[in-house]
């Protein structure tokens, strides 16, 4: 009896995507609090890193998976967000409240993303890849050129903001632990991640998301159905840029500096690795990808050292694994980790599966 009632309550709550996503977000929040309170400061720092990578990867996976645009320039967009935050948190006595800083990072990046998106909306395939690759290579140069304002090669140092009193009180009330600087940043990062993922999940389940998918699968058909293809693609890019901006803002605080060397092509390519590994378009996959980007390098580097490689050589093993991952996923499992498991699951669920068109499978 109670099971039936419980089931109907769950069923009621799951009825709309918004409610479903909000519940997912709340569960995520509980998990985040539990995890962050039970690990040490070092792991908290790593989780903060995972949070900002996850935000950026989430934005990119929506752009690539749902709208079919491949951006190699998200590292550059993160740089825009990071420099915006750094300019506001660099050598100021009374910094603006953190949400305002984050919001401004997002807004500035949205403006830049809109410009890039308008240009990219008219391109396809390799042209977008090339143009955004150029963006990734070009943007660190801008920071070096305006050395007086942006700190040149050394970059801008960022003073870590203090946790506000009410926040420390709330955490103490809930967990009986004090809030340290690292833990506060990890919380900020994960709040950002949960908010952006709930919004992204909602968006992709909505009319807008369907429009994006329609544009991805067949531009001409989408246009015939009355969709403004150009606007849909710019919108997707702007949403994705907003995520990159937020990620950059969090990153500036976590690494305590915004410098050109932090936003190399390698960053953009590792974001792409996470997207591809998780499966294009899957937010859960994005989270797994971000976790691998955060926790894998240390493990692999340790493995390399135990195999007798020098420190410098071991440090290069992580990029090697990223690259091999990209190649192998494309060759063996184009739907990514989550997509492949999901497809296998579906195949088991329905004994007579509908044949999946290879093109669709690759784009899922």
């Amino acid at each position, binding site marked *: 009896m109670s099971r039936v009632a419980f089931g109907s309550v769950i069923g009621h709550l799951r009825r709309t995507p918004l409610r479903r996503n909000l519940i997912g977000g709340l569960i995520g929040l509980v998990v985040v609090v539990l995890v962050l309170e039970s690990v040490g400061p070092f792991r908290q720092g790593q989780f903060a890193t995972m949070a900002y990578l996850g935000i950026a990867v989430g934005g990119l996976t929506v752009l690539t998976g749902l709208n079919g645009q491949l951006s190699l320039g998200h590292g550059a967009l993160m740089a825009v967000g990071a420099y915006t935050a750094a300019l506001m948190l660099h050598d100021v006595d009374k910094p603006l409240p953190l949400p305002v800083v984050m919001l401004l990072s997002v807004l500035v990046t949205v403006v830049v993303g809109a410009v890039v998106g308008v240009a990219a909306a008219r391109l396809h395939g390799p042209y977008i890849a090339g143009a955004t690759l150029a963006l990734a290579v070009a943007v660190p*140069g*801008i920071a070096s050129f305006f050395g007086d304002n942006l700190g040149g090669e050394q970059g801008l140092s960022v003073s870590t903001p203090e946790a506000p009193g009410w926040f420390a009180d709330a955490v103490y009330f809930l967990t009986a632990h004090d809030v340290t600087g690292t833990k506060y940043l990890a919380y900020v990062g994960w709040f950002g991640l949960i908010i952006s993922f709930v919004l992204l999940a909602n968006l992709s389940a909505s009319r807008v998301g369907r429009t994006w998918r329609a544009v991805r699968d067949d531009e001409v058909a989408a246009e015939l159905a009355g969709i403004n293809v150009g606007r849909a693609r710019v919108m997707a890019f702007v949403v994705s840029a907003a995520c990159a901006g937020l990620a950059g803002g969090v990153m500036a605080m976590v690494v305590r500096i915004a410098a050109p060397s932090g936003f190399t092509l390698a960053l953009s390519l590792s974001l792409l690795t996470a997207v591809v590994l998780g499966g294009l378009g899957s937010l859960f996959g994005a989270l797994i990808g971000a976790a691998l980007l955060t926790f894998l390098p240390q493990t692999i580097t340790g493995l390399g050292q135990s195999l007798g490689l020098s420190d410098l050589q071991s440090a290069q093993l992580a990029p090697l694994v990223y690259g091999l991952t*990209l190649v192998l996923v494309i060759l063996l499992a184009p739907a990514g980790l989550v997509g492949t498991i999901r497809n296998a699951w579906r195949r088991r669920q329905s004994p007579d599966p509908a044949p999946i068109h290879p093109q669709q499978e690759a784009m899922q």
Partner: protein
Amino acid sequence: MQQLLTTSLTGLTLGMVYAAFALALVLIWRSTRIVNFAQAPMAMITTYVALVVVNAGMSYWIGFAAALVSGLVLGAVIERVVIRQVEGKPEINAIILTLGLFVVIHAVAAIIFGSSFRSFPAPFGLRGFEAGGVTIALTGFAVFSICSVAVVMLLLVALFQHTDIGLKMRASAFNQEVSRMLGVRVTRMLTLGWALAAVVGSLSGLLIAGGSLVYPSYMDSVVVYGFVAAVLGGLDSPGGAVVGGLLLGVSLSFVSGYVGSELVAVAALAILIVVLLVRPAGLFSHATARRV
């Protein structure tokens, strides 16, 4: 006046090298409709091969030849083993694959050869010619760069226009199905195309490195410039790639000389965006019909 001359000559030399790199991209694009972003690290690693040979005490020219041969082999192997799998698949797969190769080759080079900056020899002088007490910024190595790229271009023209194998390659690039029916071994032609492109890419890698420093990411910006040059020319035309390369080389040299070398990549990005917005099919394009 002298700075103008210097800037133009430097731009011309760089332009020839970018043209070679763009040519490598165009060769692959024509045959397989793939932009090979891994071209840069492929050229980088073959330059390291040359460096190893030269450091072993052999002459520059043996190193030069070794780099080109290893480029040939690398290009063929990569096409055969990896790229073959995604030909005819959605274009996003091929793009991600070449980027994966980009990262892999980078990391392999850093593991084998180290990430430090190493100087690379040049076979000719790096001092400008003197004419009437004024030093002209045309170095012996610059002349060599221009000549070698020109020779490679002439060889490619001869190959594609006047030999049987060139005709077969053009046929397979034009229409695989029909060529196959006419008895052309299309897959073999595609492999050959990649191998030739890798040789041209290696040459540009050697020319960029000559008299300068080599490190795993020294070609990364060149792949952007090569791509911009290729797009300027229309991505489909070898002649366009050469003109695009020269135009880009001179423009970027002026940006570097008069504005600031940090903004070279930004200028390349701006040129790319303008070209793509105004003439997406390149400067020399005709209107083409697109089948839906």
